[in-house]
């Protein structure tokens, strides 16, 4: 295992002769260069986030006078309080959950069943099904936005389901689109995962007289727990982060999810960017927490699709 940085090994070795006293612990200079580079990139990647946190703690007058990149004179959580009270961020956060939680559960349920059908049952047309779901998720959203907008405006819903009396401007529209769109990705990932499970388990169950539901719910799904957990983490973040669907399919401001509601913190004539920074940090916080706690699941969710078992 050589440690030289692929791009510039000779240069680093040349430095080794001169910088010998620095690496008493026999740290190779190439390694040092590598760490310097990675540390610099990491800091550069972290800087915008830290800047947002920093800006959110400082009053507008101060940053307006000295800029965001200056020493602090006053630090406070006032903007967070303001975002909560005037910006009603907690209401929008609940809206996000109203959309993301049912959409997530439905997506995982349907996708796991479709994946089970295309990978574990010898159905006719299973490759077609798989292609239909996988390709559907790869379409740019804007391709389907316009007809859906017209469609949702024409689907009447009773008042108890939607106060707009149509599917347009209701949670139903956003949830339905999220489920339809994200099922494709989950089917693809779960079908790949299920294919790595031994078929003998299912065959043994069939011999014991298990029906399709038992094969799916009792036999296959429990074995998919890691993959489903990974997808749940990833999909929750994606659905929570969504911006476009709510923007296009909702018109009343008080139903918006938190990402779209960020715009409300922008004033009509004047925007307090520090307030906006506080809002951004609040929107980002749940996803960053999810990522920190469930990092392994998150990464597994992404890579399960790219690398087969």
């Amino acid at each position: 295992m050589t440690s030289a940085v692929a791009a510039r090994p000779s240069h680093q070795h040349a430095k080794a002769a001169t910088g010998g006293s620095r690496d008493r612990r026999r740290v190779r200079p190439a390694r040092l260069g590598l760490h310097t580079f990675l540390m610099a990139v990491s800091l550069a990647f972290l800087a915008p986030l830290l800047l947002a946190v920093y800006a959110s703690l400082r009053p507008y007058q101060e940053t307006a006078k000295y800029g965001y990149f200056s020493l602090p004179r006053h630090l406070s959580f006032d903007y967070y309080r303001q975002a909560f009270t005037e910006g009603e961020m907690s209401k929008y956060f609940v809206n996000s959950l109203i959309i993301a939680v049912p959409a997530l559960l439905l997506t995982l349920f349907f996708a796991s069943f479709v994946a089970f059908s295309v990978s574990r049952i010898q159905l006719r047309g299973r490759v077609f099904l798989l292609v239909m779901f996988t390709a559907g998720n790869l379409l740019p959203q804007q391709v389907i936005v316009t007809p859906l907008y017209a469609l949702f405006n024409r689907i009447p819903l009773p008042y108890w389901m939607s106060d707009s009396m149509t599917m347009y401007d209701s949670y139903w529209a956003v949830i339905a689109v999220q489920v339809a769109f994200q099922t494709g990705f989950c089917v693809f990932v779960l079908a790949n995962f299920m294919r790595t499970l031994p078929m003998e388990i299912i065959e043994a169950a069939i011999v014991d007289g298990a029906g399709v539901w038992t094969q799916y719910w009792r036999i296959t799904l429990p074995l998919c727990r890691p993959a489903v957990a990974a997808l749940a983490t990833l999909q929750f973040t994606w659905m929570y982060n969504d911006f476009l669907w709510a923007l296009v399919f909702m018109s009343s401001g008080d139903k918006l999810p938190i990402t779209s509601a960020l715009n409300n913190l922008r004033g009509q004539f004047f925007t307090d960017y520090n307030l906006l920074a506080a809002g951004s940090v609040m929107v980002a916080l749940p996803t960053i927490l999810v990522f920190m706690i469930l990092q392994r699941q998150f990464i597994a969710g992404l890579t399960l699709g790219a690398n087969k078992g």
Partner: protein
Amino acid sequence: MPQIITRRAGRRGPRRFSPRDLAVLGVLLGIPVLLEIGLVWGPTFASIGLSFTSWDGVGSIHWVGTRNYHDLFTNYPPFWRAARNNLLWLGFLGLIATPFGLLLAVLLDKNIRFSRFYQSTLYMPVVLSLAVVGFITQLVFSRDQGALNAVLANTDNPTDWLGDPSLNIWAILLAAAWRHTGYVMILFLAGLKSVDPALEEAAAIDGASEVQAFFRVVLPALRPVNVIVVVITVIEALRAFDIVYAVNHGRNGLELLSVLVTDNIIGEASRIGFGSAIAVVLLTISLGFIVTYLVQEMREERKP
């Protein structure tokens, strides 16, 4: 021998389902398939159909043939600005952010210390909402208070990174790359872990340098990941929307095809036929890549 063949054929052939099985399959396969057709594929084909019509979303629909496309290409300046920006987006992600993500993945694959810290940090922007990325972009690039102008000590005659229509797309692209790099890095990193180290060792014994071994042996072995990364890069470039919308609603130099589609439905003038024509342009470009990807996927599917 013949017995074995018939047994295999018997197992492969369609199984007989009980009525209960059929009901379960019908409902639980039927609902997602209906949703997928009704809310994804149906609208896709409807977009194609509507692109040949003139419709305001309320009145009657008129067939206008290819007039929308004609107007789009010859008579609608934002279209070419948007197409150029989407192309820049693709180029920037594909030629700068993606190779950079690959470089980071290769470096992190070397069993170094603090690898987890680096990975988490570089990956952090990926979990952010693109709308949030858009707002953070404003903090960095804003003319009067932004951090970049302060770092550059550029306060007397500050550069308006986001307001100058010839500059702002580059600021946005940096923000997009910020998020894209980590995403690509994770995919490559997972791919690299699955490459057999014996391959590299064999190449080294044959006298290949580390760089040669990487480009001639490791990278080709990553083919499935490479394909996914290319598809993700293209799709991200075509889907790009949230960041520019959060910054200035995609105007003044930040036009994108996706923004034009959205503007034509939620804007003041609802021109559904015209918006659909732009959507079809997006669809056509993406379809080539989607098909290539699926062909590769399904080829692997048929392997035992």
